[in-house]
């Protein structure tokens, strides 16, 4: 479900929440907990086409357009990365393509302490955000035509 908050607000809120935790063990714990709340990933979309490139672990991301909003399903075979993709999906869920495209470019940085993860290419945070943006571009072209 789309949050009542904007992408920007939600990003800062999650960033602040993570920063407030005492150390990285707890932060990873919180991130993994978000991963556990992800809705099950539809097995029929566990396909090469929906793998996000540039992550050390496997990350699947499947977008669906309904009522002009994009709904994402996501999964990963690694727990922390699954938590990360869940976090990103929580921020971006059920938004219009326009909202996603208008989102700040520095989401990774604004997640604050997750900067460590975002600069860590293998975590794939940057790739996930890029992939979401690409889907938004694709859908925005479809909805506008």
């Amino acid at each position, binding site marked *: 479900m789309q949050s009542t908050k904007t992408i920007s607000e939600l990003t800062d809120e999650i960033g602040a929440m993570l920063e407030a935790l005492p150390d990285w063990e707890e932060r990873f714990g919180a991130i993994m907990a978000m991963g556990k709340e992800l809705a099950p990933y539809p097995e029929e979309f566990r396909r090469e086409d929906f793998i996000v490139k540039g992550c050390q672990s496997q990350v699947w991301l499947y977008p669906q357009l309904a009522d002009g909003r994009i709904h994402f399903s996501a999964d990963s075979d690694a727990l922390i990365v699954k938590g990360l993709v869940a976090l990103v999906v929580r921020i971006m869920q059920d938004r219009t393509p326009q909202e996603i495209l208008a989102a700040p470019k520095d989401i990774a940085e604004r997640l604050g302490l997750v900067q*460590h993860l975002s600069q*860590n290419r293998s975590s794939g945070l940057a790739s996930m955000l890029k992939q979401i943006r690409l889907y938004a571009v694709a859908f925005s072209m479809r909805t506008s035509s």
Partner: protein
Amino acid sequence: MHRVEPSAPLLDVAALRTEFPILHRTVHGGKPLVYLDNAATTQKPNVVIDTIADFYRNHNANAHRAGHVLGSEVTTMFESARRRVAESIGASAEEIVFTRGTTESLNLLAATMSGRFERGHRRNIVISEMEHHANIVPWQMVRDRTGAEIRVIPVDDHGLLDMQVAEQIIDDSTAIVSIVHVSNTLGTANDVHRLSAMAHGVGAEFIVDAAQSISGMNIDVNEIGCDALVFSAHKVYGPMGIGVAFIRGRLMESLPPYQGGGSMITSVTFDKTTYAEGPLRFEAGTPNIEGAIGLAAALSWRDSLDMSSVIAHKHALTLSLTSGLASREGIRLHGTHQGHSGIVSFSVDGVHSQDLGLMLDAHGVAVRTGHHCTMPLTARFSTSGSVRVSAAVYTSTDEVDFFFSALDRALTVLR
């Protein structure tokens, strides 16, 4: 070439010099070093030296591959360095490939663009008579492999490119035009805008060798309109072993990889390997991260100066050098540009350039003699090579005066 603004604020050269530890050393038992071989390599300010030491003391790790905090820090530093380089030449970070230096950048371009000559009707590459060997030999290697033709824009007696010939030989069978921005031997600045327009006018790609221009002028790849531009960090106050190939996005996409190894792949099996996109495709193996960060520090240092003041200062140095030389008997200037490169070459009738260089060195004055890695050009002006004096931003007018007194003394002994 930039316009020299007479109103530019005066550069505080004395203050600048305190930032360069080597400028305070002496040679040959107490003689102050007068370093006038800046076209060969520039000296490094403290901020560059300290950046390198700090990197190894506090951060060192391998970039890109690591999942740990040092690795993330270093990846951030490395990729910020790429952005810093991109910014300072008006490019985007995805267009910046880190190489060992100008020479490797040109070899990379020559090797990966050589397919241009293997198909289609474009069979020649245009360079000039004033190119550095680094912009000649790689193309000769391509020629030997593909049968491409090398066309050469001649240099006139003033050390300028003959643009009329350029107009003729750059034609629709030309695939690439690759030209030096500022000649390392003559100091001449070429009109890269016009050459860029000529190249693009016939559908050819345009490469600029900015090895000598990067330290003393603002460079904007979009303003020039070039498809690639290359330089070395060590000639712009940065460390050795690192350089840049700016390659415009659409050109980069069309190029096959150069060297193979780690980082430049997305997957490897013994049957088939797939390659990464963007600059990483051309950066096989552990990159010179230290070097990239040191280069970024050097460019930041450069950009902290007021470029119009730098240009005015180097213009004044260039004029003192050329007028001082012209006023002495038996001295022949090679090229007669009135620019601000700080580079002036000359020969003296009846005096071998090497003797002069050694004699100047006896007084602590470091200049370069010989062919300056531009044999075809140097041969055009003198058989015994030339003496090249090259000033940098930290060169003082006192040093130029000292050079002339040492020159006069040396000539008395040698003639």
